[in-house]
């Protein structure tokens, strides 16, 4: 048989490619459930890390099963909210049927105007205190960057953060994940929901004592800008929710102020709505 004829070459390559495609498709389908379980456990471990429930070195040693068990044990509730901050539905947190909002990319389009977003809120229990973990998602330099930011019970302070990426440059952009000192900076910072910029990652260093800004990573300007945009876009979408959380705690403390949208002034007054996100109550 002449193996150099055109017809033979075309038929041969076609058959080879079809066989290879069939093998790969079969393997990919067979392994998909295992891979999804790995990704799910990883997502949860990132949230646990952000919420400071498990330290990073312990987390690396935990297998998928113990990560899921730890999640079910420490999570209080998880739910989806819409852009108004109203609860849409609960997410299942039972061990064995844990439900996560893993369609961050789709929600990112929705936040930017493609539709009504369903934003996840994960509420963890840490020694009786509530920890709110919110995701962020955006574009880095080479691919998506995402992360989880954990707030304290009235969302006034960030207690921790975790960031990940799909393909940022090792040693530069990848430091958002690999460099613990970058993540550590977020601890104790707060988000300015009244301002135009909620949070800033500042190239050349955040001003001394700034509450809503951290230092960017040298040599990773594009990644940091992407992460900055991701944080601001997503936290903007969470603004009504954050305002309610902050407002609720303010009325609890009864210092005579109220949140942006909340009508619940302490002592039954009404909100005058005049000065920024931190209005005074009329009595």
């Amino acid at each position: 048989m002449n193996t150099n004829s055109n017809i033979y070459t075309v038929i041969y390559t076609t058959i080879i490619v079809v066989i290879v495609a069939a093998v790969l498709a079969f393997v990919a389908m067979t392994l998909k459930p295992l891979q999804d379980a790995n990704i799910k456990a990883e997502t949860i471990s990132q949230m646990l890390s952000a919420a400071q429930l498990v330290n990073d070195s312990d987390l690396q040693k935990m297998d998928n099963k113990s990560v899921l068990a730890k999640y079910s044990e420490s999570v209080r509730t998880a739910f989806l909210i819409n852009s108004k901050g109203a609860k849409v539905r609960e997410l299942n947190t039972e061990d064995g049927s844990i439900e996560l909002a893993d369609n961050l990319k789709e929600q990112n389009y929705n936040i930017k105007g493609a539709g009504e977003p369903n934003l996840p809120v994960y509420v963890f229990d840490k020694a009786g205190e509530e920890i709110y973990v919110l995701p962020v998602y955006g574009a880095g330099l080479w691919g998506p960057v995402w992360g989880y930011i954990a707030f304290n019970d009235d969302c006034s302070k960030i207690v921790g953060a975790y960031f990940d990426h799909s393909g940022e440059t090792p040693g530069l952009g990848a430091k958002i994940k690999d460099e613990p000192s970058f993540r550590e900076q977020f601890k104790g910072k707060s988000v300015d929901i009244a301002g135009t910029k909620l949070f800033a990652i500042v190239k050349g260093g955040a001003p001394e004592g700034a509450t809503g800004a951290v230092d960017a990573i040298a040599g990773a300007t594009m990644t940091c800008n992407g992460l900055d945009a991701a944080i601001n876009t997503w936290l903007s979408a969470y603004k009504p929710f954050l305002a309610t959380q902050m407002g609720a705690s303010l009325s609890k403390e009864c210092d005579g102020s109220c949140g942006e949208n909340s009508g619940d002034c302490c002592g039954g007054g009404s909100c005058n709505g005049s000065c920024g996100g931190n209005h005074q109550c009329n009595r």
Partner: protein
Amino acid sequence: MNKDLKNTLLNPIFKGNPISVLVLGICSALAVTVQLKGALVMALSVIVVTGLSSLVVSLIRNTIPNRVRIIVQLVVVAMMVILVDQILKAYAYSTDKQLSVYIGLIITNCIVMGRIEAFALGNKPWPSFIDGVANGVGYGLILVIVAFFRELFGSGTLLGFQILPDSYVPNNLVILPPMALIFLGCIVWVQRAIQKDLQEK
């Protein structure tokens, strides 16, 4: 085992080592040798890919149209690499993330295509398989040696277990790629000192 086969098996491991003698596959050797575990998984992946793709190409060697033979080889190698990547993603997820793009880049590792072109196309399946595996082992051996020293002196650990006492301050230079090149240079030096016929006059 006859003499030819034995030679096929042993030559790539020391005398004709793909990294230290042929200087192939350097890029990944520098990148994945920070930790011993990563190096072991990478070595194993390369052994599987070189062995199986040499075997498959050798099985179909008489049917491959000569004009598109590189493409056909590439399809076979790509299939093996994707299979390895998918299996690692399912069973060794954290190691797969650590090795990131380098598993996918096995496809461009000159050792794989080099052995197929040089050996598998002209030999029977069994010797080709041995040749592929042996070259993978030769590659992996260097990787493991370099990673052993880099993890020991760079982190004070081996396979994640603390080996050196806490009083040892980890040398951060060892973790960076340049130091891998220096270690590799030392290996080449030692090999050339032992194997005099490699020295240029």
